[in-house]
């Protein structure tokens, strides 16, 4: 399917629930950016299918300037992508019978979903390892890129030169083939979820995904921020490899299972297990 957002045509997949479910609850999946999106693709498809099996209408789509969607990559930035999410929800309302809304965002997609929630007031807001601090996220993307160069170039790798090149007079950045404009960097740098948590979403689920089954200090702080803002928030963590960072056969079963259980507990249409 496709729909318009400003001057771009956004493309994606609409997963309809099987059987005779009432199809009135929808989840829009907000993807991560750049390499993280590429790595997480398989898990997001798996998650969409599992949610559809649980009775949700699910929309997966590519943000403008990424994937199959059109749009100038140089124009891509969080403010533009928030508009894309709003257009995605309008598409779901027009194309389906759904009138209950959930947003599920992974990494920067989680951050975008949380920001979009302020205007959309979804019934469910699911945040998988959201980017809490934008500056840190940019820093780690630079580091990821340098590590790749280090492993590729071996003995020829000059860290000082490579690091300097990233910062010195190169306003636009290249996250391993993904263009990040200076404007996009500025907008990402200003991300601070701890300072912007609000009670717009009726139910918030923050899921940490990593080597520990406990939330990080930062994530714990985000749960507290949502709680202090008056949101009904649940924090949980699953021990699972960070699938947005690695290439391999990862299904994200633990993350999907926890999310389905929470959605079911918070009034979702039904329950189901991840694909066998």
């Amino acid at each position, binding site marked *: 399917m496709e729909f318009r957002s400003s001057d771009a045509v956004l493309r994606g997949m609409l997963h309809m629930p099987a059987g005779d479910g009432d199809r009135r609850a929808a989840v829009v999946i907000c993807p991560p950016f750049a390499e993280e999106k590429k790595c997480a693709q398989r898990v997001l498809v798996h998650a969409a299918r599992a949610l559809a099996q649980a009775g949700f209408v699910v929309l997966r789509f590519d943000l403008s300037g990424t994937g199959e969607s059109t749009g100038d990559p140089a124009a891509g930035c969080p403010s533009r992508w928030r508009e894309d999410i709003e257009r995605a929800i309008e598409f779901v309302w027009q194309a389906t019978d759904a009138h209950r809304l959930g947003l599920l965002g992974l990494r920067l997609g989680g951050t975008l979903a949380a920001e979009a929630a302020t205007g959309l007031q979804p019934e469910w807001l699911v945040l998988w390892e959201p980017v809490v601090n934008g500056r840190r996220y940019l820093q780690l993307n630079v*580091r990821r890129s340098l590590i790749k160069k280090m492993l590729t170039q071996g003995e020829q*790798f000059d*860290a000082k030169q490579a690091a300097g090149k990233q910062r010195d007079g190169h306003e636009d950045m290249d996250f391993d083939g993904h263009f990040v404009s200076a404007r996009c960097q500025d907008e990402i740098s200003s991300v601070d979820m701890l300072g912007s948590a609000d009670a717009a979403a009726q139910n918030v689920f923050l899921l940490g995904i990593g080597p520990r089954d406990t939330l990080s200090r930062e994530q714990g702080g985000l749960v507290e921020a949502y709680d202090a803002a008056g949101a009904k928030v649940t924090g949980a963590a699953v021990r699972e490899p960070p699938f947005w960072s690695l290439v391999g056969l990862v299904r994200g079963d633990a993350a999907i299972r926890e999310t389905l259980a929470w959605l079911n507990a918070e009034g979702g249409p039904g329950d189901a297990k991840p694909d066998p």
Partner: protein
Amino acid sequence: MADEQLKSEIKELLVEVCFLDISPDEITDDGNLMDDPYNIESFNLLEISVHLEEKYGISFAEEDLSLDLFQSINSIAAYVKGKLAAEQAAS
């Protein structure tokens, strides 16, 4: 912090962060972490650096990145020790 304690903690961190199917005791101090049986990959190195920063309150400088830094437990421990000493001297 004693060297052996630091190395022991780094081994535990590696097993946890990299989801290695071995016990920390099985990691040698000087074994090449990117070879068998550890096979640490690029995405692991990013996660390792992040978790070391969180655990020890240090900051990896991009200019410090090198294959040598991540080669072995010894090299990682030397880097962490150096960063801790530098930050202590600065404070």
